[in-house]
């Protein structure tokens, strides 16, 4: 009986489908976004590769955060925002207007610019999502695993019950990464995760990002070209809402195709 039901469920629910090449996790296709009349993304096309780190760079206001947030439909809370085009996640269009397309289980975690842990203990920060969701998982085990994955375990293992706000900025940011990992995402989006941190804390975050790609697909927005060059496998350069160039990071930094890209990365910009 159950087998039969499962069979029925597999059938198409009239959702738009698209076969993506195996190594592509997400595909942005002819994607536009407006805030009222101001167009912030202009026909963006971009492939996010599985288990690779993609950096989005470009000058302030060019639409990096807007694009990153679009990957998780975070523009839904902004009443003035309107989109056109598609963003595919494993064969499903996350902007499909058909509400029956619930097969799109967007397993996406986010880390924001400002480290913003909840005002709870360290362990409760990590476990919060599981707790609210009544998830049947072992708390100690989950907390330890996520803190280890976020390279924070060594520093906090003896003070898990302390308030997260007592941590340093860099530690708080790694805690936010641990918190995002606890919900078992397969894509991790980070918007300038190190911009509020000192160089040592930044280096730690960068090392961590490199480790994360084993298990996750990572997209990181950064205003630091050095950072993009250090951590990413692929780089997308944006300017005034357009995606100007996208390629392997090495290619972008050694031999960019477009003049605008070259100007930006050599700092002869503006």
């Amino acid at each position, binding site marked *: 009986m159950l087998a039969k039901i499962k069979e029925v469920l597999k059938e198409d629910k009239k959702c738009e489908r698209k076969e993506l090449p195996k190594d592509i996790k997400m595909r942005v296709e002819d994607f536009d976004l407006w805030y009222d009349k101001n167009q912030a993304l202009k026909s963006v096309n971009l492939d996010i590769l599985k288990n690779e780190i993609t950096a989005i760079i470009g000058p302030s206001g060019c639409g990096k955060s807007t694009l990153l947030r679009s990957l998780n439909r975070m523009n839904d*809370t902004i009443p003035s925002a309107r989109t056109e085009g598609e963003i595919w996640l494993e064969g499903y269009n996350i902007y499909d207007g058909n509400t029956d397309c619930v097969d799109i289980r967007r397993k*996406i975690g986010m880390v924001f610019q400002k480290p913003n842990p909840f005002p709870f203990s360290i362990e409760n920060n990590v476990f919060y999502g599981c707790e609210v969701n009544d998830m049947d998982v072992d708390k100690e085990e989950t907390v330890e695993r996520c803190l280890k994955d976020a390279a924070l375990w060594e520093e906090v293992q003896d003070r898990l019950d302390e308030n997260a706000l007592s941590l340093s900025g860099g530690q708080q940011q790694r805690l936010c990464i641990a918190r995002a990992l606890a919900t078992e995402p397969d894509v991790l989006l980070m918007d300038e995760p190190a911009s509020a941190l000192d160089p040592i804390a930044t280096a730690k975050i960068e090392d961590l990002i490199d480790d994360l790609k084993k298990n996750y697909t990572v997209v990181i927005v950064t205003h630091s070209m050095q950072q993009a060059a250090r951590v990413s496998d692929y780089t997308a350069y944006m300017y005034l809402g357009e995606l100007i160039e996208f390629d392997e990071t090495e290619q972008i930094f050694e031999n960019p195709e477009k003049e605008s890209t070259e100007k930006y990365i050599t700092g002869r910009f503006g």
Partner: protein
Amino acid sequence: MSEEKEVRKSYQQELRELKEMVEDMGDLSTKAISLAVESLVELDEEKIEKVRDLDDEIYDYDKKIEKKALNLIALQAPVAKDLRIIGSSLQIITDLNRISRYSKDIVKVTERMIDKGHIKKLISIPHMADITIDMVELSVDSFMEEDESYLEEIYEKEDMVDALYDEIFREVLTYMMEDGDYITQGTQYVLVIRYLERIADHACNIIDRVVYMETGERVEMET
């Protein structure tokens, strides 16, 4: 002879009435869910009151149905399928009662949300509610029609409800992580989707009971 026929007829009549009362109680229950979710989406205080009134009505039905069912069992000593129908009625009204309690829980959320406002226009929650309401309606229909073939459709919807739960939960959690100020509202949304998910579970209980009523066999289903 003719007297016995009279008795049989009124017994069938009574049984039909019993089922119709369950159907009415089902209608009130789905109406309560629908109003409760509307109260939340629109932050409408009048609808909160309506849901509470409905809950009182539902409670009265529960008592009336229980009394009638127990009378039927005592006076008619029903057997086989008739007995299963009466037994199922008693169990189904327990499910409907629970469902109604969740509607009341949802309006409690509305009350807490009224001066907070929503963080965005609610789309997925009402969609999840629509599917849940369908499930309850279908399960009660299956009881009325004595037709267990709705089982697959209901379980298919149950799977959609679970998927929506997961999706909405992740979405809400992301907003809470971005801005701690959303924790209060976010926690309330998670409560609502949990209530809806439980309502969907009760619809599954109902159809499972109808399967038993029709076939005499229990559904073995891992959910």
